[in-house]
């Protein structure tokens, strides 16, 4: 069977062993993964979605932090490529019982997986684990550090809707401080030539945020001015009870995305959200459901395709060796 990946066999392959972050990826590598994913989008819309590219390979989804959507997306991606996919959820309590991350890595290594998809609540934990296993590792989110497949799926969504990434103005709004989605998106969008603004109260901005190559704005109206893309981030409720933000209603008043605030952006500005949404906290439900503006469900669809592309690219080395 001719898969999208096979058609592109002549292109320079993505030769990395792991995908631990967007940091360090070149524009060519990113474009290559997005091109690959484009092909999988078409496949996923057919009734027969099954390929055999990863047949015989084992993929373990190792989640130290629960995430139904990301895990499901990776599981579907692996299965559609023909891999055997196993989900392993490691609760924090069993980590507290004494098994360290490296113990877990060694244990899994002995089971000979080919791909490990790892989500962990600590920054740098996925890279640490990758140093102790032989297989390919995909970072499915580490602490406040990176979430590369989210940035790739956002980029694919933008590219398919807007036809390009370079030259666009993207406003990323919300809890930048704790957001791995923001960091990966900033890195990717900057690499691809977009202009990035981050919009948040100062208590939710990282120190020296301008050093990431973005403009920081604390006024939502000004932050959205002439934006092509408005990317909203989730704000966790425990951060809105007086520690970083006084209250939910105050946050919504100043930073919640409404049609009124959106008027500052370009008329065709697209709205994105990595999910799950807090309606009435960072985004008005009416805006989220506006099918002319909101790309939120597109993002979910692109997520599966992008993860298929990543799995395909990372395992190519194994498949040619076999």
């Amino acid at each position: 069977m001719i898969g999208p990946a096979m058609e592109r066999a002549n292109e320079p392959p993505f030769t990395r062993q792991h995908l631990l972050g967007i940091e360090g990826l070149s524009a060519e590598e990113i474009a290559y993964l997005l091109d690959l994913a484009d092909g999988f989008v078409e496949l996923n819309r057919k009734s027969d979605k099954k390929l055999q590219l990863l047949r015989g390979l084992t993929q373990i989804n190792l989640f130290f932090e629960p995430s139904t959507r990301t895990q499901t997306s990776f599981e579907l991606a692996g299965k559609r490529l023909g891999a055997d996919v196993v989900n392993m959820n490691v609760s924090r309590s069993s980590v507290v019982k004494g098994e360290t991350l490296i113990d877990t890595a060694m244990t899994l290594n002995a089971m000979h997986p080919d791909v490990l998809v790892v989500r962990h609540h600590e920054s740098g934990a996925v890279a640490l684990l990758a140093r102790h296993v032989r297989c390919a590792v995909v970072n499915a989110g580490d602490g406040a550090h990176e979430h590369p497949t989210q940035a790739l799926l956002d980029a694919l969504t933008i590219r398919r809707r807007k036809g390009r990434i370079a030259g666009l103005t993207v406003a990323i709004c919300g809890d930048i401080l704790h957001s791995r989605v923001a960091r990966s998106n900033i890195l990717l969008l900057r690499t691809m030539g977009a202009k990035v603004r981050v919009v948040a109260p100062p208590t939710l901005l990282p120190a020296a945020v301008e050093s990431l190559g973005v403009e920081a704005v604390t006024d939502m109206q000004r932050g959205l001015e002439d934006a092509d893309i408005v990317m909203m981030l989730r704000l966790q409720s425990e951060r809105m009870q007086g520690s970083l933000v006084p209250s939910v209603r105050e946050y919504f008043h100043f930073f919640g995305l409404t049609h009124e605030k959106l008027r500052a952006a370009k008329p065709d500005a697209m709205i994105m959200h990595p999910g799950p949404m807090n309606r009435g906290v960072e985004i008005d439900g009416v805006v989220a459901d506006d099918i002319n503006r909101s790309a939120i469900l597109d993002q979910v669809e692109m997520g599966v395709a992008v993860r298929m592309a990543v799995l395909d690219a990372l395992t190519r080395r194994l498949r040619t060796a076999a």
Partner: protein
Amino acid sequence: MSRPVLVVNARLLDPASGLDRRGGLLVVGGRIAELGPQVTVALAPPGTEVVDARGLCLAPGLVDLRAGFGEPGAEHKERFESGCMAAVAGGVTSLALLPDTAPPIDDPAMVEFVARRARQVKLAKVYPQAAVTRGLQGAELAELGLLKAAGAVAFTDGFKAVADARVMRRALAYASMFDGLLVQHPEEPRLAEGGVMNEGAVASRLGLPGIPAAAEVIMVERDLRLLELAGGRLHFAHVSTAAAVAAIRAAKARGLPVTCDVTPHHLLLTEAEVEGYRTFAKVSPPLRGEADRAAVVEGLVDGTIDAIASDHCPQDQDSKRLPFAQAAFGVIGLQTLLPAALALVHEGRIGLLELLRRLTVAPAAILGIEAGRLAKGAPADFVLFDPDARWTVTEKSLFSLAKNTPFEGRTFRGKVVRTFVDGRTVYEAET
């Protein structure tokens, strides 16, 4: 007592007297009997061990203001045997031990325990520092007077700042009664809470919670005010920021009885070491940016910073092979103290005698101990070192049980060749 020792053909370096010339040194009965250019083999009493230094530097043994072992409570991290061996291999002949053990050194019996263990091991001289507050809890004063009488050379809550201003005021005032020295870990704990590295661009990119540089100077400035209010004697450990150096410089100019130290890692390394989530670069206070690093070097050179201390903090592999935020703070540093500090001499930032002053007589004066000098009648604690010999730091080359050095793989110029305590050879490098 050991037999007499005569070292000839050495470059004698004594910062206290400004001595820097070729000569010899005679030890009788564990003390320096004679030193200078006139000391030759002819002077040796019968049975003397004669050591030809072949032009090596001979300096007072180093005095380390701040080192921690794991005894009692964490013997797998460092014991007196391994810690003192690392010390003498680094030319350190006296060290002031931190009280954050389990149980902590907050009771006269614990002070005596330290003294007894040091006597048994008989390598470096170990001076206990005692807790400021009971159980290092920051609330109630420990028995400062009795602890001092038992032999404590200073009071500190170790890696924890004395956070409560009222407790700090009272500790300063109370200890002033017997000229007790208070040593503060200058960090505003609420500002630093949850932070794991220096706040700034690197932390933001790595997605790690930061500790702002201001957390240090806020505590320094508060304590300087308390010192003026309460009296006493105050020492700030491991100063790491430009702002804190400036505040202490101004306080010294006003005549306040304040001193401070810096670690070799804050002199030589920056937050860039954390790249790749290297947990061996996780220390408290955190490694800072280049401007702060340059400022502490400047502070050391101009004398604002009185001493260099290792802040030796052994951690086992299980405490460090973790995601960065979960890993323990601390690096070892006894054995690399002198070689690391010598880097500043090789860079031309400071003269050799001035550097040695900050490693010997200056810290000895802060602690009020008889150490850090080459003088007739002084204890024969000294080190022979080659300022130019190169050696590479490897796990194997370290005597500490713990191997958490931020300098692994680094080649230092400067090597300890032989260390003497009370005239006994306690370390001799393999050649």
